[in-house]
């Protein structure tokens, strides 16, 4: 509610009226630059992608032939696309479970204000500020099949060397290890920040009742930080779906498509093979998935308010 709108409108001199008219334009002037960027580089490309997904364009000719749902039908019969879809689901599910399953106990454990704990917090957060390119290359070197350090460690336990990035049954999990290593510290810190907001009296009451550590964790800690857990889950689902760098640098979607995710499929089809139609159709399917997730995210955000009361 701006005060300008509440001013009495009777007897307004022309100059004031003109000022009022200018005032009405102010909000649009303020949002215009941001909206221009969104419109040109987000919304228009989305619409353009939607159009391309129903057409077969060779990038050269002026007319874009309409093919209806042919691209979508072709996708459903494309074994690589279906594999990319399952890979994305697998990758996302395991990645999110790992992040949540590690960051919550780690956060509860490291939530102390001693020097050593603070150093540990700073250390586990540090991969978050590093380029994923470097992280991918360092781990590629560590996972090297011939003289990688990881296989030396494996050999200490008397096991055979593992083809971390060359075995199609393992490569996807190796990529998950790398991104979990990079991401888990950030979410641990988020959990610690959430724990700081939990009222101390709850824990004092639990101590008076002589509640066990496990009971305190499940009955007090977890319910108190549930909104944060939701946040971590949703953000990580979206992060996992976007994964590109590690795949591109470490495996290029291989071996035999075992690490080709939806995003990587779109990149290969659209950018390397220039099959614009199918790539756009795959993009629209990904958009649908993201929109559903966004809907749930904002419903959860709405629920979060209840928790905070």
């Amino acid at each position, binding site marked *: 509610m701006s005060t300008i709108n509440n001013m009495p409108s009777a007897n307004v001199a022309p100059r004031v009226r003109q000022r009022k008219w200018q005032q009405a334009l102010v909000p649009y002037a303020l949002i215009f630059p*941001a909206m221009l960027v*969104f419109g040109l580089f987000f*919304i228009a490309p989305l619409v353009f992608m939607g159009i391309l997904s129903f057409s077969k364009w060779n990038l050269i000719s002026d007319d874009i032939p309409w093919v209806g749902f042919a691209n979508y039908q072709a996708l459903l019969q494309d074994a690589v696309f279906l594999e990319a879809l399952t890979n994305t689901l697998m990758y996302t599910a395991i990645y999110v479970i790992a992040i949540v399953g590690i960051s919550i106990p780690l956060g509860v454990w490291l939530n102390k204000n001693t020097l050593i704990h603070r150093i540990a917090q700073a250390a586990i957060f*540090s991969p978050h500020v590093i380029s994923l390119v470097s992280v991918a290359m*360092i781990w590629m070197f560590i996972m090297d099949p011939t003289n990688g350090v990881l296989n030396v460690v494996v050999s200490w336990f008397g096991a055979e060397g593992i083809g971390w990035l060359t075995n199609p049954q393992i490569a996807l999990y190796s990529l998950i290890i790398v991104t979990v290593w990079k991401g888990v510290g950030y979410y641990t810190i988020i959990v610690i920040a959430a724990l700081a907001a939990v009222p101390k009296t709850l824990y004092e009451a639990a101590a008076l009742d002589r509640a066990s550590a496990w009971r305190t964790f499940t009955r007090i800690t977890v319910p108190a930080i549930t909104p944060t857990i939701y946040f971590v889950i949703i953000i990580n689902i*979206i992060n996992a779906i976007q994964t590109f760098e590690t795949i591109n*640098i470490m495996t290029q979607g291989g071996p035999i498509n075992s690490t080709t995710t939806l*995003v990587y499929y779109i990149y290969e089809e659209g950018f390397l093979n220039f099959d614009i139609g199918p790539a756009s159709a795959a993009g629209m399917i990904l958009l649908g998935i993201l929109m559903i997730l966004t809907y749930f995210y904002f419903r959860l955000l709405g629920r979060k308010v209840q928790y905070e009361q």
Partner: protein
Amino acid sequence: MKKSLKGVEYSLLAIVMLLIAFPFLWMLSASFQTYIEIIATPPTWFPSSFDLSNFMAAWQSGPFLTYTMNSVVTTFVVLVLQFITMIPAAYAFARLEFKGKNICWSITIICLMIPMQLIFLPNYLLFSQWGMIDTYWPLILPFATSAFGIFMLRQSFKQIPEEIIESARLDNASEWKIIRTIFIPVAKPTIITVLLFTFISRWNDYFWPLVMTTAEDARTLPMGVALLRTTDAGVPWNEVMAANVILVIPILIVYFIAQDKIIKAFTYTGIK
């Protein structure tokens, strides 16, 4: 009893910290190793000498000065543009009423959730139509504002009491003056957080420059480093790791100097 528990805890802490630190230490060790040492099986743990020849070789294996320049310029310009575009938009969404506000806000939310990996193809076609591939434009324009930043700033702008703004309006202050003298100072922590996020994501970005540039001279630092490994020439790991040291260590040093503030800034978003 209590003492032994402490011992267990400290050893577990040591293991966790080693798991985090080892890849960095391993990169450092490899960056000083000779070619003979780097290809040896089992691997060499410690380099025999600490000369900088790998760093020189890595730096000279491509136009790294150009890569660095490209990274610096595009990141800096994006930061400035975001500062200029985000704050007025967030202010309008937080404090002003106008027709079409809901639609514009929905557009912002959609853009918040859309990854660049989804819309790169139409963007690429657009930029190549405009003849802008291999220029700074595609690396700057789509990031000239930030939906995330607008979202966060609107949140903190909403918490400023209405009375302060009313009294400023009674003094005939312009909207711009109100933003400058009241909103920016109050929302400073949020602004720093958002720009820090932008800095990290732009400086480290690999995907967007990979798609939008083809010429060597247009590439950015992460791309240049990544290409060392993917080119057919097959640069050896010691030089690749040296290049990564150049990319990683400055950021790590800044991080550890300012880690208290950086962690605080990053967690600022997670709980609110």
